[in-house]
């Protein structure tokens, strides 16, 4: 397939995944911002940090929900805003129209301009409904790909883009929130930390799944384990890496060539594997997350290089 097509499929999936992840993050921010005492802790700032948008708020004041709606939902100029991601995903899709099924295209083409010129005030009032809408667009798109798309190389590039973006979102979330998962907070305990952990799980739609695996009690170690090394939870880093490895292997076979990206995926898997006996976190959660982030960044570059994007 054309390299440009592969590139666009990869990025189309990343943009959709990013739009959905950002919607989940904003939902998490809303939960945390209504906690007692949150007014002077600037919970929204961490949401901006996860998305790399902290520098988009001027001045030293508290970040407000208005800021979030403006920057992360509506701003067409901010490349990581939900609006920009939806527009970008559709532009990617349009340039590879022939590689998509009718349903996949429709999922992106329907109401792609909905957020254009949306007033901040109105968006704030309808925020939960808008975020649900974003999540449902992403779900419909994925469903259409899952049930209708030929399993040719293009499907693998979509899965690689989606997997990479999802792994990175989980990692960035952990990176910003790692301090609440530090062992010390076990001692501090208390309602707020408990709420913070559950918020992180909620942001990744993992709170019920967590209980299925670890029982009723929250512990920082288990949460870190769940989000990083658990191989059943579809938003864990390890799960995403498993998926990407499978598609990289398939692409390598189809193209009859070994790639550096596969070695990097193996390295990442091995690193996460150490997490099973706690070795991953011995040097600190923050360091482990940073190491994984660096490897996923390298992986993205190597995929582009191997397939001539």
């Amino acid at each position: 397939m054309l390299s440009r097509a592969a590139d666009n499929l990869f990025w189309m999936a990343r943009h959709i995944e990013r739009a959905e992840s950002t919607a989940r993050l904003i939902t998490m921010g809303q939960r945390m911002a209504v906690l007692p005492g949150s007014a002077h802790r600037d919970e929204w700032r961490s949401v901006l940090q996860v998305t790399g948008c902290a520098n988009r708020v001027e001045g030293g004041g508290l970040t407000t929900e208005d800021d979030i709606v403006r920057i992360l939902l509506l701003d067409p100029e901010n490349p990581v805003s939900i609006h920009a991601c939806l527009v970008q995903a559709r532009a990617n899709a349009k340039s590879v129209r022939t590689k998509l099924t009718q349903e996949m295209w429709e999922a992106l083409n329907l109401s792609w301009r909905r957020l254009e010129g949306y007033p901040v005030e109105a968006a704030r009032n309808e925020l939960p409904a808008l975020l649900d809408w974003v999540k449902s667009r992403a779900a419909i798109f994925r469903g259409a790909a899952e049930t209708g798309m030929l399993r040719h190389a293009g499907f693998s590039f979509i899965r690689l883009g989606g997997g990479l973006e999802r792994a990175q979102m989980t990692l960035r979330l952990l990176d910003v929130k790692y301090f609440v998962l530090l062992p010390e907070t076990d001692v501090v305990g208390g309602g707020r930390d408990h709420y913070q952990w559950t918020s992180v799980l909620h942001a990744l739609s993992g709170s019920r799944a967590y209980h299925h695996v670890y029982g009723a009690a929250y512990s920082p170690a288990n949460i870190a384990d769940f989000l990083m090394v658990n191989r059943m939870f579809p938003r864990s880093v390890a799960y995403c890496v498993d998926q990407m490895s499978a598609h990289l292997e398939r692409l390598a076979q189809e193209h009859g060539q070994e790639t550096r990206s596969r070695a990097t995926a193996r390295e990442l898997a091995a690193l996460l594997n150490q997490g099973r006996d706690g070795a991953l976190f011995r040097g600190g959660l923050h360091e482990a997350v940073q190491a994984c982030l660096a490897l996923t960044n390298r992986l993205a570059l190597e995929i582009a290089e191997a397939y001539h994007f």
Partner: protein
Amino acid sequence: MSFFEMHDPAGEVRSCYAEVQRWIHETGVEGLRHRLEEAETIFRRIGITFAVYGEGGDPERLIPFDLLPRVFSRQEWRVLDRGIRQRAQALNAFLHDVYHRGEIMRAGLIPEDLVYRNPAFRPEMLGFSPPGRVYSHIVGIDIVRTGPEAFQVLEDNCRTPSGVSYMLENREIMTRMFPGLFSQGRVRPVDNYPSQLLDSLKEVAPPACKGEPEVVLLTPGALNSAYYEHSFLADLMGIELVEPGDLMVDDGRVWMKTTAGLKAVDVIYRRIDDDFLDPLAFRPDSMLGIPGLFHAYRSGGVTLCSAPGAGIADDKAIYVYVPEMIRFYLGEEPVLANIPTWQCGTPDGLEYVLAHLGELVAKEVHGSGGYGMLIGPRASPEEIAAYAGRIRANPRGYIAQPTLALSTVPTLGPAGVVERHADFRPYCLVGKTMRLVPGGLTRVALSEGSLVVNSSQGGGVKDTWVMGD
């Protein structure tokens, strides 16, 4: 008084429209309008849109679709089919002549100046014969009708005529929504157009091609107004849709960049203007295009469809001479007549046009899409005066034709069936053999009395039926 195609002179419904009449009667106007909304929703959802240049609002507008089909009887199509093929053949013969011995100019039938000093003429093509001597592989001929027996050619499109996707989609949506209309099989199918197009393209594979030809469709990109059509056709033919950046030239051949490395390309159905094909050959200032493409073409490494320079045959100044071409190259009388045309570039023509501008339709020779034209009877004295000034400043740039009493076709209005002016564009395919699917694109002016059918000016489209027996 315009000829209404649905009725015979006595005002009775013509037999080829009997099925349509029965359907309108059974469904009722309310029902039809309701189904029209459904059709528009489907078009919007699947993204059949048309980008309009230089206008505000929705950048991807929907072309209005009219539910009532336009019908040609078997006898009418027999005439059209013969006339269209004849014209496509003569135009290709003319192109070969222009780029070789120029016999028709030597014979004094077409002024040399008009050809060799025409901006659409490509001296780079002189002496080169493309595979099968085909220059224009898809000839779109715009035809209007002024009476029961009177079909006339409005203009020819020899470069990259667009709109065929609407022919296919209009039929598709009609079949999907009203399967009963087609169940008797009297309407001849058009859905084999993509496979016929692919066959035609494969037939002109270059000498360097060994084995099954690799055909691609070259688009300027997703921002082009016809991008939907490009992706639609590539999809139906099962070929790659490429942009200039996907191609490169090496060792006399064209290669596309794939995830598995470079892959040779044999035939390029290009939907890009000559100017932007190859900066080394045509426009050195262009950042677009594929450097070296033209050299690969001339040395037999790849085939370009249509050939660079094919536009000389559909130039509005050359149009006047197409009947002469048919007589000269084929030794036949034209089946389809031209519309009488005055060329402002000649002294007599200029004088006549300036004196009668209020009665004529004047056009820019190099314009398209209905832009830059004057419809005399509809224009104000100020507009006519201003247009006359433009003609005087550059007489060669303009032609004028009489205002025709174009035929009308049944169209769905808010309160019932109304009569609207229409034209017709069939797509004739030229490879080793000539192919013509029974049908084409009918464009219709949606406002009462309007003669402008261009989609960029508010025209709509409708399904076109050619009846079997």
